[in-house]
């Protein structure tokens, strides 16, 4: 591997500054505190945060800085380096200033460290120990407040401990873009406060707790849970969604207790969303599966691995003998590790010989599209001239991607075009194009300047302004510098519309790059591993095969199998004999529930590999419990194709196994052997046989890519192993951060091939498939008839899905169930806000209560995906997977 040291290689101009006597080449525009840190001089600080604007409040970082008028004390977190500047951080004068500030910070700070969550990992405490004056000279009255108050559902504030550094308030306004908390009052009365009628209920609230330099902000899920010195930790990857934020998972007494964000420049820059931060609670939920279960005719009974595996194996052997491989199918797998997914693909496609596998549940995009479109990294998206978001509410789906994109729009580096059937959290930062579900592809074609597309029913003005953005943004030829975010933000709009939109833009902007905003944590990894019809591990088609693979695997299916919907349809026709569900609640999560139910009624054997009890396990014949987040080792792949380790911190409950082991054992039951000793053996095989994963072997995964992961194919994007912007205060208690120490702040980038964009250019089979899709005419849905409304089905971060509902801190916060309708339409229907009416789709009719929403188009009505009412009725009961769109009638009762 060639190693490039950014600080040297990038031939940036440097400014030489003298820090404590030694000359140092700093980067122009760098803050003194950062330059000093890279020079190995750590200046104490509290309010400074590397990812937020400096304010120079706390005055802890005062150092002597030379100027024409001689030396003066200056905040090193605010002053930028200048040529010839001399900085003294350790003179008696600087020391006295720093120690003076420290003493003053302590005068009103309670001495309740022993009962403070922060005790033991508190910068204030540490600094006081380090160089505060021994016993206090302060004998007066300390400031008093009532003890902690809840400022939001998850966060409590102890005002006595606050040191007014404004980190939390800056995060709220600068980073999250919602100033739900701010400083109130003046001087020593300053307190952090939300507005009385508007609590601090932000998806990102947990970050304020992580960056609070003292114990003023605490999170209910962690309060009094543990003491720092009892914590064990491992760096890992968040499995809350497909952004794959880098985290530190901390456990105490064998249980996960806290997640903290780690600063990885390419991904989350130290931030996490609260779903990711607190979602780990699901791991310890009471509905975890702890033993194998067997259906004894009428009910599920506890069983043993031996019995359960035997039953599974027999069912498979039987099906193979009587009906052939195509009678066996796999659905799910998007929450497995790459190694787990690979093992199941090997089981399905090599051992059993069926291609009918699908990591998605009819709620995603076809594998060839996801894998075949030119992929963008998150940084490419935030550095893009223009980003087009196709019908996604990213804050609800991929929260930290929302933070990153919002950031780049706010500091002016990126223009945003938000095409959506309803307003989204990015709308206010974007040029928006609204439409009725079904028209997305038309909209895409029109803003891309496609002529001979009928613009009927669309807002000309909006389309024109979107076109102007694209034409005036200075895009390179063929859309170089354009990034498109596409996914299934609206499950009421069928995949074919989303696909048509994406491939049309790809045809008109061949150089544009794509981020597929699929949501489940490792869906991109699972697809890369071949857990989809028509593809094999490493982003190759069945046809291309990959002789390396055939060599190691012996055989692969020669005919293309079916995806989840296809499988359920043949299941409903009695053609499927054995269905494996891989950590997927098929009965609840497949948008067309009616279809799923009909299929399950006909499929004789459902083998459910799962972590939690859910609708699907309840209907299964065999249930096999597997390890979940934090309970197994392996790698996962995020939306940009970044492969990063996910780490075991605790042991799985009961007798649950890592999923790959279950695949091996089932293979063994049918007289075959996957040939895996442990998960690392799988990692090695992936690196060897999966083209896109060449080079991603253990030494890379556990070496250079340990912290930041590596974007595949390796060499496409340099591996950034720059040790993160260190802020021992921003990430308290992360020993792996502290242990690196300040001196390691040397930029370092490793590329497997000499840097530069080495992405495969010659179209592989997938690229060919995508081109073919692009040739098809732009998909357009018929207008809804005048009696009907078009249903938009949108996800919310806190839904009624297994993950959220199994985590006690998040479960209470899901959005209330209801159908959002434009007030004028409600008036027309003679129903008022909050009342009930009847919603009728070809599938069924059901009572729903309505929520008036003036931000909607009058033809559009909205239901939350996986946001069931008390009777478990949800939007998915209305959807017919074969229809382009869902038109519903509303009737007053």
């Amino acid at each position, binding site marked *: 591997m060639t190693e490039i040291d950014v600080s040297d290689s990038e031939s940036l101009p440097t400014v030489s500054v003298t820090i404590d006597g030694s000359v140092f080449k700093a980067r122009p525009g760098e803050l003194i505190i950062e330059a000093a840190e890279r020079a190995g001089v750590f200046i104490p600080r509290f309010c400074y945060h590397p990812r937020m604007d400096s304010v120079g409040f706390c005055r802890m970082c005062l150092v002597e800085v030379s100027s024409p008028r001689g030396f003066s004390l200056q905040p090193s977190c605010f002053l930028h380096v200048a040529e010839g500047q001399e900085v003294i951080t350790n003179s008696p004068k600087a020391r006295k200033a720093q120690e003076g500030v420290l003493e003053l910070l302590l005068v009103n700070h309670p001495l309740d460290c022993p009962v403070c969550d922060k005790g033991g990992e508190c910068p204030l405490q540490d600094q006081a120990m380090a160089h505060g004056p021994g016993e206090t000279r302060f004998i007066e009255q300390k400031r008093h407040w009532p003890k902690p108050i809840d400022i939001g559902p998850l966060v409590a504030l102890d005002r006595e401990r606050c040191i007014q550094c404004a980190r939390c308030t800056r995060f709220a306004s600068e980073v999250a873009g919602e*100033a739900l908390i701010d400083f109130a009052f003046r001087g020593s009365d300053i307190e952090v*406060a939300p*507005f009385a009628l508007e609590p601090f209920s932000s998806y990102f609230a947990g970050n304020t707790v992580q960056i609070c330099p003292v114990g003023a902000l605490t999170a209910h899920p962690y309060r009094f849970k543990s003491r720092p010195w009892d914590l064990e930790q491992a760096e890992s990857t968040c499995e809350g969604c497909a952004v794959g934020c880098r985290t530190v998972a901390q456990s105490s007494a064998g249980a996960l207790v806290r997640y903290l964000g780690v600063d990885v420049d390419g991904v989350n820059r130290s931030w996490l969303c609260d779903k990711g931060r607190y979602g780990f609670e699901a791991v310890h939920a009471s509905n975890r599966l702890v033993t194998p279960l067997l259906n004894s005719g009428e009910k599920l009974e506890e069983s043993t691995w031996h019995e359960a595996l035997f039953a599974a194996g027999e069912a498979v052997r039987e099906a193979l003998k009587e009906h052939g491989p195509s009678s066996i199918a796999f659905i799910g797998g998007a929450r497995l590790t790459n190694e787990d997914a690979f093992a199941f693909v090997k089981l399905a496609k090599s051992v059993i010989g069926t291609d009918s596998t699908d990591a998605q549940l009819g709620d995603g995009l076809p594998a060839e599209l996801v894998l075949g479109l030119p992929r963008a990294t998150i940084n490419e998206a935030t550095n893009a001239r223009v980003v087009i978001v196709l019908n996604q509410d990213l804050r609800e789906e991929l929260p930290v991607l929302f933070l990153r994109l919002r950031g780049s729009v706010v500091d002016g580096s990126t223009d945003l075009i938000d095409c959506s059937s309803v307003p989204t959290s990015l709308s206010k930062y974007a040029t928006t194009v609204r439409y009725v579900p079904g028209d997305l592809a038309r909209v895409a074609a029109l803003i891309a300047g496609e002529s001979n597309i009928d613009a009927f029913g669309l807002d000309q003005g909006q389309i024109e302004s979107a076109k102007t953005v694209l034409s005036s943004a200075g895009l390179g030829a063929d859309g170089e510098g354009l990034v498109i975010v596409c996914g299934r933000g609206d499950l009421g709009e069928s995949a074919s519309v989303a696909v048509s939109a994406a491939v049309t833009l790809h045809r008109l902007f061949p150089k544009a790059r794509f981020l597929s905003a699929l949501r489940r944590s490792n869906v991109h990894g699972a697809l890369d591993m071949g857990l989809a019809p028509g593809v094999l591990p490493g982003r190759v088609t069945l046809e291309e095969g990959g002789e390396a693979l055939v060599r190691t695997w012996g055989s692969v299916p020669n005919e293309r199998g079916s995806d989840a919907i296809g499988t359920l349809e043949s299941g409903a026709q009695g053609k499927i004999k054995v269905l494996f569900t891989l950590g997927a609640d098929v009965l609840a999560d497949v948008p067309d529930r009616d279809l799923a139910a009909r299929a399950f009624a006909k499929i004789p054997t459902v083998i459910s590999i799962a972590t939690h009890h859910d609708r699907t396990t309840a209907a299964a014949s065999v249930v096999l419990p597997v390890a979940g987040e934090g309970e197994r080792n392996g790698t996962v792949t995020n939306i940009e194709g970044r492969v990063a380790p996910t780490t075991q911190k605790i042991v799985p409950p009961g007798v649950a196994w890592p999923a790959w082991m279950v695949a091996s054992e089932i293979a063994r039951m049918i007289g075959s052997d996957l040939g895996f000793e442990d998960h690392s053996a799988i990692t090695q095989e992936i690196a060897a046989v999966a083209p896109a994963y060449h080079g991603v072997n253990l030494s890379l995964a556990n070496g250079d890519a340990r912290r930041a992961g590596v974007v595949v194919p390796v060499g496409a994007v340099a591996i950034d192993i720059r040790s993160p912007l260190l802020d021992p205060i921003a990430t308290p208690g992360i020993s792996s951060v502290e242990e690196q120490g300040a001196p390691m702040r040397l930029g370092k980038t490793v590329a497997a091939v000499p840097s530069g964009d080495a992405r495969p250019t010659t179209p592989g089979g997938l690229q060919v498939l995508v081109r073919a899709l692009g040739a098809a005419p732009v998909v357009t849905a018929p207008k809804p008839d005048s009696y009907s409304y078009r249903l938009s089905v949108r996800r919310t971060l806190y839904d009624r899905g297994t993950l959220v509902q199994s985590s006690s801190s998040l479960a209470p916060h899901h959005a209330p169930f209801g159908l959002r309708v434009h007030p004028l339409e409600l008036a027309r229907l003679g129903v008022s806000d909050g009342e009930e009416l009847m919603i009728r789709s070809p599938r069924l009719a059901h009572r729903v209560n309505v929520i008036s929403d003036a931000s909607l188009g009058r033809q559009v009505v909205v239901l939350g995906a996986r946001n069931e009412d008390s009777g478990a009725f949800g939007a998915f009961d209305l959807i017919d997977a074969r229809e382009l769109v869902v038109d519903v009638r509303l009737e007053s009762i």
Partner: protein
Amino acid sequence: MAHLSLENRERATRLISLYPKDRSALIPLCHLAQSQDGYLTQEAIQDIADLVGVTPAEVYGTATFYDMLHTEPVGRYVVAICTNIACLLNGAFELLEHAQKRLGVYVGQTTNDGMFTIEEAECLAACDTAPCVQVNHRFFGPLAGESFDALVDNLESGRLDDVVPPHGVLNRVERSVGLTSSAKREAAQ
């Protein structure tokens, strides 16, 4: 508790139009709201927030920085007694004690009849009339025992109504023109 009246909403939009950026009108709007209700109601805070385009938390946070803006109800008359250096040297603390006795409440409190709130003020820039007092920001002084009692009597009897409007009413002279020159708001935007 009240939202801004329609009339005041119009005043508000006129005030906003005087500034290159909307948020600059935040404090004038807080004064406007106080002139309506005597203090800043939560509804007014919400109105101001969406009028100038910030969050209510930001309006609350900004307003509470300033001594003249009250987010809790106060008396019809806020009696502010300066005890800073010049007044101190001329018996301000004695006056303050007298005032508390006379009105039967301590600094920061409001009489039961909701008529008077006592505040201990910082220098009011009337040191030549020390010890000086402001009632709803109208000046009185120098004051001592009797003269203070007389002032209270006059306020209670309404004899000073045209000199001292109810708390919150600050500037009774409205601006008669909008922006006229070529230096338009866009300049800064």
